[in-house]
């Protein structure tokens, strides 16, 4: 039985349980609902819950664990002389899986009977062609031991699924009968159901933790795999980024530093645009602008934050790039070679970050109490002197926090740099030169690639790890600064 049908059966079980539980509760008090502890539906829900939830949890665990158990037991069937490294074993195992899947598909499609599939002989039938017909393409001829391993896998999966169905149905039935037995007029069904719902709520809240764990684990494992294939020292110290596309490893030099340089350079340009404009806009909106100006200008600036980054990317590539090229290119100053450059990406990213800086700073400036301003005016300071000498120092921790958050946003921004910054990694000071960033390289190394065995693909995970640590560090630092230096006003 497939997991899908098991789920349907369990659902049906739960529905029956609901009706029976409700009926039994009512029957136990001879239909006098006042004598029930809880509303009748709670009794039904309790039975449905106990029949369904434990079984489904076991099913979920089983679905995740079974492939691992079978994989490790089947890989013992592969003769050791066929492979040298773990990577080769993985390739063989994926062949085994595909052959097993293919045989199952062929049985499903009516090309083989069940017996034929279990006793198929590689010499007598052209297995590869047969599997090709059901849509499983194999790279090479099937080794006899692969075929036998695939058969072992098929039988193990079949027995595993059989046990799964039995175990699940037993658990569901047990839950069902326990709940039915419990059901009586005095039973506190509502408390039971509410405890269940509470568990569900906790599970939903824990998804945030699971996501973080997922991110960290997927980055760590693949990064370790990368460092096994490629020396970590080279990754951190080489000044060159030149992945080879032909062979595996060896010829590639995958140095982090040029990418990091490009990332930081572009971020600095972006911040040089965004911080002054954003900060001055925030000051003007908070201190000078009347309610009418504010109600128009603030949402207009925030529109910039709602525009998807792909739009900014296109804007960089097709509007700002050519514009800069016509001024700084060969017809102008002669500093710029192509449309893509640090300046192009940085400028557009700066525009994107303006509302980010301005609305955060605006909130912080507004949080400075009016009494401080009034005190300053009372001493004879002008409005701008008040802003510079009283308001800004009071708001400084918050503003620094906002700038750090904007920096982390700039480091992680992808589409603008993919489209506006160029593809060549370079260590250069000229801001009109094309450079590339960590995020752009993650995209180019992983796009359309499903083979994770080569260091050229795995390096993307190491880059992702770098990026994750950088942005996480900045966020934590920003929070720390805001918390530590925040002035508490009554």
């Amino acid at each position, binding site marked *: 039985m497939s997991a899908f049908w098991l789920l349907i059966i369990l659902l049906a079980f739960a529905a029956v349980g609901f009706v029976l539980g409700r009926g039994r509760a009512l029957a136990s008090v001879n239909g006098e609902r006042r004598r029930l502890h809880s509303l009748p539906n709670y009794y039904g829900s309790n039975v449905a819950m106990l029949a369904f939830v434990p079984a489904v949890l076991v099913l979920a665990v089983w679905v995740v664990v079974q492939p691992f158990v079978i994989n490790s037991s089947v890989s013992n069937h592969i003769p050791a002389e066929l492979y040298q490294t773990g990577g080769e074993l993985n390739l063989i195992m994926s062949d085994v899986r595909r052959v097993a899947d293919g045989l199952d598909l062929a049985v499903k499609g009516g090309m083989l009977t069940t017996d034929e599939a279990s006793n198929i002989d590689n010499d007598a039938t052209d297995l590869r062609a047969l599997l090709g017909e059901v849509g499983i393409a194999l790279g090479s001829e099937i080794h006899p031991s692969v075929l036998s391993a695939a058969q072992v896998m098929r039988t193990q999966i079949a027995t595993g699924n059989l046990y799964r169905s039995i175990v699940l149905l037993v658990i569901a039935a047990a839950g069902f009968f326990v709940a039915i037995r419990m059901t009586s007029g005095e039973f506190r069904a509502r408390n039971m159901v*509410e405890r269940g*719902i*509470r568990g*569900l*709520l906790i599970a*939903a*809240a824990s*998804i*945030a933790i699971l*996501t*973080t764990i997922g*991110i960290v684990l*997927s*980055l760590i494992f693949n990064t370790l795999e990368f460092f096994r294939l490629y020396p970590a020292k080279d990754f951190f110290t080489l000044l060159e980024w030149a992945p080879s596309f032909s062979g595996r490893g060896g010829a590639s030099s995958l140095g982090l530093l040029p990418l990091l340089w490009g990332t930081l350079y572009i971020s600095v340009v972006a911040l040089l645009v965004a911080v002054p404009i954003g900060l001055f*806009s925030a000051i*003007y909106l908070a201190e*000078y602008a009347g309610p009418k100006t504010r109600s128009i*200008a603030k949402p*207009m*600036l925030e529109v*910039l934050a*709602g*525009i*998807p*980054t792909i*739009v900014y*990317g*296109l804007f960089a590539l*097709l*509007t700002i790039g050519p514009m800069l090229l016509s001024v700084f290119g060969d017809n102008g100053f002669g500093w710029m070679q192509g449309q893509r450059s640090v300046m192009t990406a940085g400028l557009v990213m700066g*525009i994107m970050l303006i*509302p980010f800086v*301005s609305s955060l700073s605006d909130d912080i400036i507004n949080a400075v109490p009016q009494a401080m301003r009034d005190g300053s005016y009372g001493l004879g300071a*002008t409005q*701008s*002197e008040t*802003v510079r000498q009283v308001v800004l120092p009071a708001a400084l921790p918050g503003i620094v926090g906002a700038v750090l958050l904007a920096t*982390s*946003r700039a*480091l*992680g921004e*992808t*589409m603008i740099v*993919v*489209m506006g910054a160029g593809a060549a990694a370079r260590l250069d000071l000229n801001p009109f030169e094309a450079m590339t960033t960590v*995020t752009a390289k*993650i*995209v180019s190394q*992983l*796009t*359309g690639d*499903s083979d*994770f065995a080569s260091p050229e693909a795995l390096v993307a995970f190491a880059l*992702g790890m770098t*990026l*994750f640590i950088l*942005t*996480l560090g900045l*966020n934590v630092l920003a*929070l720390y600064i805001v918390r530590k230096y925040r002035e508490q006003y009554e």
Partner: protein
Amino acid sequence: MTDAAFPDGAEGAAPRTTSSLLTQDTRTKKRNAAEARFRAYGIAAIAVGLVFLAVLVSSIIFKGVGAFQQTFITLNVELLEEKLDKSGTRDIEAIKKVTTFGYNPLIDAALAQAIADTGIENPFSKGKDLRKMISSGAAADLRDHVIENPDEIGKTVSFRLLASSRVDGYLKGRVTRESLARDKNLTPEHLDIVDALAGAGVVTKAFNTDFITGADASESRPEQAGIGVSMLGSFYMMLVVLACALPIGVAASIYLEEFAPQNWFTDLIEVNISNLAAVPSIVFGILGLAVFIQFAHLPQSAPLVGGLVLTLMTLPTIIISTRASLKSVPPSIREAALGIGASKMQTVFHHVLPLAMPGILTGTIIGLAQALGETAPLLLIGMVGYIASNYPDGVIEGFMSPNSAMPAQIYEWAKRADPAYYERAWGGIIILLVFLMTMNIIAIILRRRFERRW
């Protein structure tokens, strides 16, 4: 004592500089100038921001509007029986054997006829050269039509065929006669013909519905490319996001806001949520690649996987806004419900949640809008543009079969070399922004109409 008590020139007055409120001394002037400057900086900053916005919006509109217009050539094509159905039996299998190459001569003849009708000289002897004015997909359209209507063979039928992208560009002003000097695809003679045909009403511009409903086309046929299939991909992803992110986000917020005790576990969840909100979107793409595709073996490029990745990405947004709207429900509501004997759970689900619903929906729509515009994580899980070339065959296929999404399609077009695709990319952005604007306006209306101030 004030200065007024000592009139100017009075004896005993201190030998200080005379100052009046009506004339400013240099220091006051300086301070006032600094004040004016500071204020001007603020105005300038806002102006610069708004100018950027204006340039962005106007360049989107000016460059993108062209994509909604397309040049068509209306031709009377004679569907010759000896070319399309030699046996004359109208056997559909026999008709299907004629490839698109068999249809090209028909188009050539019709085009030559149309040119002759306008009265100008046809400088091209070969049909192949003449045909460059028409999209290379036109023959396939013709063939599809004939296979659907085999009884029209032998008749002369009027077709509205797509003009090639160069002709389209010429009529829109993108291609000029000078730029053709380096272009092997079209010559100035072609443009003379186009001018004549446009004068005769054979070449016309019309609204391009195919751009909105069509599929992506190959690199050499920008005139055929449309955003419809990837729009459907985006739609399925949004369904997944809505179905996963809304219940999970609301459940998580209810727990954190109403039930969670103050302990390390709650703190851990809070820290995680605020950190996830700041993780770059591309990291979520890496997570999706490693967990959903590498580990769970879900199909690559499927909208289902894209939707799951975007769900994880938008969850923090939805949780933060849901918590804010739960918090804004006054405690008196909860106390009243508890006071008449409702359990904590009943209080939350029967009273607090309905009152917080408008705020939750607003936050959800804004989260969805954010997810709709996201590109980078989709590229990593293989939802790249060129995949969107066929409509999925059904709802399940729609979730599981490889597809793209609107932003990824736009990115794909922007990468292609032909400038005709840039126009498509801008046009795609207009469609994307129309969706985003609609969603945001719905969110604003919801907030205005239903949000209660307590």
